[in-house]
């Protein structure tokens, strides 16, 4: 690639003085430099925006932070009337529903990725990949709508009753079934994060060197044993995909609030009970909150969600960087 700006700068110095552009020889204001500076400034606005995001959310949370401080993180009351707010149940709800989502989505995404990359002929695989990607394009609100009117009745009539009768001796699976709640939210989240996770894993498997599986096969391995070698190789990527799925699940507001029941309590009585998450309370209460402290507490929850999400995303990035280093090292051999 031609070194556009550098060589054109040098050229100015060597041009004869009668050259039309010789006059600009000493200035830094070449078109290329201006362009580079301009695009750089615009691009850097993203960095500024993220900084502002943290700052403004902090500003908005100030009243809440001043009143509750770090106790907000372990507070278990949420009462707009009395002016008491605590986020612990929300954090727990977010973590648990996301964990359920991952527990379901991880093996399924793995299976989907294997089916698409290892077990199907290319053309069929492309068709099915296409459908899986379409899953990701459905708006959250539509998933929520479907959740309320299709998934919940289905779970309530067909799926949950047998689960409760078989496993009801465990407290997790006892209790009244109304169709929505913790498990339902986790399931809906799993459906929503599967397309991203399986797409990443599928690409990971396609990019894995074929010599790996070849070597395993030559030693008399079955296809599954060879795949296990490949999965071992791609482990960092799988972790990264999982972490990304986690981030997505934690931040999902609309679909969750439509099926989880929106009940603020420290712990639900069972998996069939209603609960709450950080994102869900924001979707549910924000526009109706009028009391300043209430709004501030909600923004505080938003700040908390932002920080947790940033941590998760940065961890995912670190995992990918380490994977690249290891894989890069191997590829260079």
């Amino acid at each position, binding site marked *: 690639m031609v070194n556009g700006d550098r060589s054109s700068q040098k050229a100015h110095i060597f041009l004869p003085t009668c050259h039309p552009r010789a006059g600009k020889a000493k200035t830094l204001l070449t078109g290329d430099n201006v362009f580079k500076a301009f695009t750089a400034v615009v691009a850097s606005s993203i960095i500024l925006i993220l900084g502002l995001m943290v700052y403004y959310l902090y500003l908005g949370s100030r009243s809440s932070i001043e009143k509750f401080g770090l106790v907000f993180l372990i507070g278990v009351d949420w009462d707009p009337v009395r002016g008491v707010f605590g986020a612990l149940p929300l954090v727990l709800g977010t973590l648990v529903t996301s964990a359920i989502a991952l527990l379901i989505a991880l093996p399924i995404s793995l299976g989907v990725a294997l089916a698409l990359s290892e077990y199907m002929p290319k053309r069929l695989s492309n068709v099915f990949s296409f459908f899986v990607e379409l899953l990701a394009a459905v708006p959250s609100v539509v998933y929520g709508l479907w959740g309320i009117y299709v998934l919940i009745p289905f779970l309530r009539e067909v799926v949950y009753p047998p689960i409760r009768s078989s496993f009801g001796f465990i407290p997790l699976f006892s209790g009244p079934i109304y169709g929505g709640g913790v498990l339902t939210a986790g399931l809906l989240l799993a459906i929503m994060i599967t397309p991203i996770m399986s797409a990443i894993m599928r690409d990971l498997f396609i990019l894995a060197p074929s010599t*790996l599986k070849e*070597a395993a*096969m*030559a*030693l*008399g391995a079955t296809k599954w044993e060879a795949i296990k070698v490949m999965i*071992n190789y791609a482990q960092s990527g799988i972790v990264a995909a999982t972490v990304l799925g986690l981030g997505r699940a934690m931040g999902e507001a609309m679909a969750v609030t439509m099926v989880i029941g929106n009940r603020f309590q420290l712990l639900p009585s069972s998996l069939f009970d209603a609960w709450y998450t950080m994102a869900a309370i924001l979707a549910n209460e924000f526009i109706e909150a009028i009391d300043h402290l209430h709004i501030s507490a909600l923004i505080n929850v938003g700040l908390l969600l932002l920080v947790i999400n940033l941590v998760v995303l940065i961890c995912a990035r670190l995992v990918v960087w380490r994977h690249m280093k290891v894989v890069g090292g191997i590829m260079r*051999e």
Partner: protein
Amino acid sequence: MSSPYKIEVENLNAWYGHQQVLIDINMKIKDKAVTAIMGPSGCGKTTFIRCLNRMHELVPRAKVSGKVIFNGVNIYDNGVDPTWVRKRIGMVFQKPNPFPMMSIYDNVAFGPRIHGIGDKKLLDQIVRQSLEMAGLWEEVKGDLRRPASALSGGQQQRLCIARALALEPEVILMDEPTSHLDPISVAKIETLIRRLAEKYAIVIVTHNVQQAARVSDYVAFFYMGRLVEYGPTKEVFERPRNELTERYVTGKFG
């Protein structure tokens, strides 16, 4: 019952889709000897050895006809399990391909483990013996837990050989095993091959005519998918029967 021939190839034909890559190959591979397969690029030599351990069929749209008789069994018969074939007929590839994220130990132990050996003491013994036979033991015995990717190219290839040996195969197939290595590693591996030939049947594909002359007892010359000439190395090189062979070994093409 112990025939001097380990593998007998009868009327072997192979295709990639519509393209025929091997035409009517008939050959008998001697036990406890090194058989070299040589020929210009594209002559079918790699396809040939991949037919010997049923690796050819892993490529989509690959087809095979004919017989490959190993220990009295045609490996292409209906009831034959390819994983059984590949356990008994091992393969070493052109570019060393150890499992990079696994340790040296786990690489060598991989074969025995998937075939049912779980006993740690037994595995330790197998790993040690295989690495010794591959001439790598002295260099790695200090730390077997190191990842395979930490080894040099030549060491990695010897690791792959050890990995194949761990299954105690009867035949070892080698597809241009030294073409990516430095001269010292090449020499080491050629010496190793001569040593292994005391115990196993070795089939080595090589594009290097001098290597074929150095290392093999028998040599087969392939050209455009056909077996042009096959015989004891000395004979084929000193008194080739076919004009093509003569031109190839004297370096006039390829």
